[in-house]
């Protein structure tokens, strides 16, 4: 343990996997450390795959590359290399990318918006205003390729997941699950409350970087009307 990373714990997860834990909570400050460490380690340690999550960072490595002949040495050597790499690095880092996500709120695009309003005691207009006012961070991607778990939801908008998960949530659905908000990149089963839909394509294998969002990115939602949705959707399909 090193002073600059007071809460850092390292745990061997598997023969070729080391988990770095920076805390136990879904908090922006902890998540910022995860991304800072990921950026630092990616830069300093060749051939390591970094998988950031809310409060932890998984490192997957090549056993042979990290061993000094004795297979048992790789975890120890990687452990030491991680400490050395993090020693003088910045403890938090904020991504420079800001991604604008246009959203058509409510109606068919967001069938649970009324329920969310009822549950929170806010009007539909207030839910939309608060959801699109906040500034979010991509804490991690998971569940499906390009699915962002976003931190930064206004606590007043936190609503429980649905008791009856949907077998298929349409691609582009913007949803709230507890204190998290996210976007379904493709049609998927899901239990989050659907409040709107974006015409942006979140995951495109034909793109140079297939995921629209990357860990640590800033995200803002912007309310749009059905005409703009149609226009943007048409533009996306021409790309």
């Amino acid at each position, binding site marked *: 343990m090193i002073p600059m990373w007071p809460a850092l714990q390292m*745990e*061997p*997860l*598997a*023969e*070729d*996997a080391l*988990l770095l*834990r920076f805390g*136990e*909570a*879904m908090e922006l400050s902890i998540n910022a450390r995860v991304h800072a460490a*990921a950026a630092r380690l990616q830069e300093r340690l060749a051939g390591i*795959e*970094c*998988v*950031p*999550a*809310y*409060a*932890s*960072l*998984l490192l*997957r490595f090549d*056993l*042979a590359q990290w*061993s000094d002949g004795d*297979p*048992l040495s*790789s*975890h120890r050597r990687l452990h030491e290399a991680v400490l050395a790499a993090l020693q003088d690095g910045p403890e938090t880092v904020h991504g420079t990318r800001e991604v604008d996500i246009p959203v058509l709120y409510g109606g068919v695009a967001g069938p649970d918006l009324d329920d969310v309003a009822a549950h929170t005691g806010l009007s539909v207009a207030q839910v939309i205003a608060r959801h699109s006012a906040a500034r979010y961070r991509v804490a*991690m*991607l*998971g*569940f*499906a*390729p*390009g*699915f962002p*778990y976003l931190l930064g939801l206004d606590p007043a908008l936190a609503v429980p997941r649905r008791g009856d998960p949907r077998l298929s949530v349409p691609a582009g659905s913007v949803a709230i699950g507890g204190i998290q908000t996210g976007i379904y990149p*493709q049609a998927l089963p899901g239990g989050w409350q659907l409040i709107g839909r974006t015409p942006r394509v979140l*995951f495109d*294998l034909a793109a140079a970087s*297939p*995921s629209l969002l*990357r*860990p640590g990115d800033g995200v803002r939602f912007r309310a749009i009307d059905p005409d703009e949705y149609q226009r943007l959707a048409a533009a996306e399909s021409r790309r």
Partner: protein
Amino acid sequence: MSLTVLKPGLLTTLQDGGRPGHAALGVGRAGVMDWPAWRLANALVGNGPDEAALEFTLVGPTLRFERTTMIALTGAITDARVGQQALPGWTGCIVPAGSVLQLGGMRDGCRGYLAVRGGFALAPVLGSRSTDLHARMGPFGGRALQAGDRLAIGDGAPLPGLATIEVPQLLRWGLDPQPWFDYGRAPLALLRGHHFHQLDDASQRALFENTFAISKDSNRTASRLDGHRLNLRRPLELVSEATVPGTLQLPPAGQPILLQAEAPVTGGYPRIGQLAAVDLARLAQRRPGDTISFRETTLAEATQRLARRRLRLQRLLDRIERRLESA
């Protein structure tokens, strides 16, 4: 050069070593369930380490080869015939143009592999030809093969003098599957997971003393374990963190889930164990209804076993390559 799927079997997919390097974007590795069996199938037909092979499950597919093709079957011991001629597994076979290969049930095990000389000439997706059924990514849009699918075969080195054969020809030698296929039912080696100590005392003992059955709900993502219900001392509220194949999770219902090749990138259930990587292939060959048990291992032992097996596999791969060259 191609083959056509006449019957797809129960679940047949193209698989290779997987799709590493994209987990941060939510893309899992997927790839073969039984790594040594896949690697040896490719070696037996003279392929390099990156070629995809067919992975079939419990009941194999029926395939027609449009050209004379060298193939090898490994993994589970599967009934295989071309017309009246039975084909053995774990060796190389050359099947003549127009052959229909019927793969039936398995006498033992759960997953078989079929490699073709030259590999499958299908476009890789994010660097891999593995099929990720959950993410719908890979060849054929990430779905299992269906009747009527045509799979292009790459240009392998030619097989001199064999273009005119009329019945299947076998290599004069084959591999002993014994070290690579789990005929025994010895316990699988399990490391204690981060939340092992959150299990109550009876559940800690039960994990290593009781047996579990592989549930019918099992698939390439996970093997669900029926049997003794495991309990935590108190419920845990966890934030999601990365998972890897072999992670043994405990959802609130108390039925443990052992993650497999298509493990999701992240998960939020308590992690009570981690299967030794060397035993992932053994787990892959256990079928729904089979019983499994765990014995406790250490990271040191698991790592040593993995390193030893890799070395043994590499020696065998080298020997196969030399024998094929001298043939």
